[in-house]
């Protein structure tokens, strides 16, 4: 956990530095008596840098109070694959949705995501995917008037 906190502290300090640089390099615009559009972001960036440094110091200096944290479980290669696979499949589905349409993409996505989540391939898996697609499509499109893209390349 110490190593992870050190790395995250460094990354956050870098992010804070970059953000602070953006606030300084932006054109100065303000109303009379207004501290300006970058005043608050500048305070926030400075605060983030300070706290990130404190987070790093907490890990290095033994005397500083260090929170008792339970480190996250180490992910097995299969779990990494499942987690990031699910994220990639979901992001791909969201990206392809406008072009390929909800009715075609959703059952395919659901079956793929269920298999990735550990479900076994059965007829019921495909049936669940089709039923869920239909229920969500009907309720959102016909009841809530949300314009989900129905078919490929409308």
């Amino acid at each position, binding site marked *: 956990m110490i190593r*992870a*906190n050190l790395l*995250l502290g460094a990354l*956050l300090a870098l992010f804070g530095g970059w*953000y602070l640089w*953006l606030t300084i390099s*932006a054109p100065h*615009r*303000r*109303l009379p*008596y*207004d*501290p300006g*559009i*970058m005043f*608050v*972001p500048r305070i*926030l960036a400075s*605060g*983030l840098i300070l*706290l*990130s440094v*404190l*987070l790093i110091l907490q890990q290095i200096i033994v005397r500083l*109070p260090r*929170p*008792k*944290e*339970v480190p*996250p479980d180490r*992910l097995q290669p299969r*779990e990494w694959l*499942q*987690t990031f696979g*699910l*994220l990639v499949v*979901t*992001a791909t*589905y*969201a990206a392809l*949705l*406008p072009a390929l349409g909800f009715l075609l993409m*959703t059952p395919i*996505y*659901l079956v793929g*995501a*269920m298999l990735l*989540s*550990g*479900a076994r391939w059965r007829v019921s*898996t495909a049936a*669940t995917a089709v039923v869920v697609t239909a229920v*969500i499509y009907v*309720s*959102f499109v016909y*009841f*809530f*008037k*949300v314009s*989900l893209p129905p078919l490929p390349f409308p």
Partner: protein
Amino acid sequence: MLEHLLIGFQQALQWQPLLAMLVGEVVGILVGAAPGLTVTMAVSLMLPATFVLSPVSAMAMLLGVYTGGFMGNSIPAILIKIPGTPSAAATVFDGYALAQKGEAGKALGVSIIASLYGGLFSLICLVLIAPQLAKIALQFGSAEVFSLLLFGMTIICSFAQHSLVKGIISGLLGLMLVAVGLDPLLGTQRFTFGHVALLQGVSLIPAMIGIFAIPQVLEDLVAKGSQAAETFKPKVSGLLPSWREIRGLFGTFNRASFIGTIIGIIPGTGGPIATFMAYDYERRVSRDPERFGRGAIEGVAASAGADNGVTGGALVPMLTLGIPGDPVTAVMLGALTIQGLRPGPLLFEQHAPFVYGLFASLLLANLLAALMTLWAVRFSVQLLRLPKASLGPVVLLLCIVGSYSIDNSYVDVGTMLVFGLLGFVLQRYRFPTVPVILALVLGASLETNFRRALVESQGDPTVFFTRPISLLFLVLAIASVLAPLRSRHKRAP
């Protein structure tokens, strides 16, 4: 007053207002329970339907949507960790934990009863002391609202139990992300890098959906391993808590309803702030604060009670001053104007039967919403009977459709996914995610009111300390930060 109330009930109990209310309740509960759809949107959608109705029927329909939405929003928050509306975010913390323990029914039952209590409490305040309460709203300028929001931000300290540094870092990250988009006072671009998609800034609801739901789905995936076919097996039989349990929660109901009503009165605040404040206050007064976040029923009661307490509170400035307390009452204000009524001090004198008809409708709407949501819960809990391996992807799909449906925009879907990934990383490395949400909810108003107060006071920073209400909230904010630090210091060996 009694005579006016009787006339009000006579009007509200006719078949037209009751039917309009029933339609409103159905729409409200469904919209509240559907992730991504807001009560404001539902009230706006129903607005054209009110043109052909009488004033009392029109308001009965809109109040039905309003109360139904506030009760229905706890259903997905408790069952699948997706807050139906931003106000239900605080219900997620303990509601979902109870659902995981197999007590989804109990959590939903308490949430509905607390909601009903909050709605009735704020209604009584509205009927009895609306003009006096309206004076409180007039005391709140930009400096007071800023100090109140700053006090609200100190809730971060309560959510950063393990590491205050990490809690504040999370809050700062949220505030920095809120700054993306158009500047709230000048309308000039900030941190948009020339991308049109970033002009609208971070959309709150997709961010909230992503940060709550996606990390949970991914963590469940990792945690359950081979038990993919496992389900939660919710206990639907225990939907209504026992009288003994309800009696034990009366203190919570009163505190939460009071906070919800007061916050509702203040224009520009609203449900999310009230629920976070009520939740935090309940945790502070609890003898066993460690239970909060792990399935404390008081946590569910506090957030749900404050959530619906806002409904009556927000109507106070709308009816007495013509100032809407939140976006929903702004739409209602429009509906009243369309009906030829002009909210303000004269409304109570010139249209007393209508005003009391509205009060009676609000009472009936709260009761009807509670009954209908209790009925709806029996069906919605069945969602948890899906095997976890199927429930996760369905939740992800609802996240995508819910985010998209806010503005029919794929940018919102992208926002949801980015915040989902951020939430997953933060949660894994023990950064609390609630401060990010709190910052997203309060951040924009915090900055706007800070700068507006300075402009109004001609650049005088003492404005925050010289106005009594503002000073009071600043003192409370300092006390709120110091209290956990002091208790931590005491606990340290």
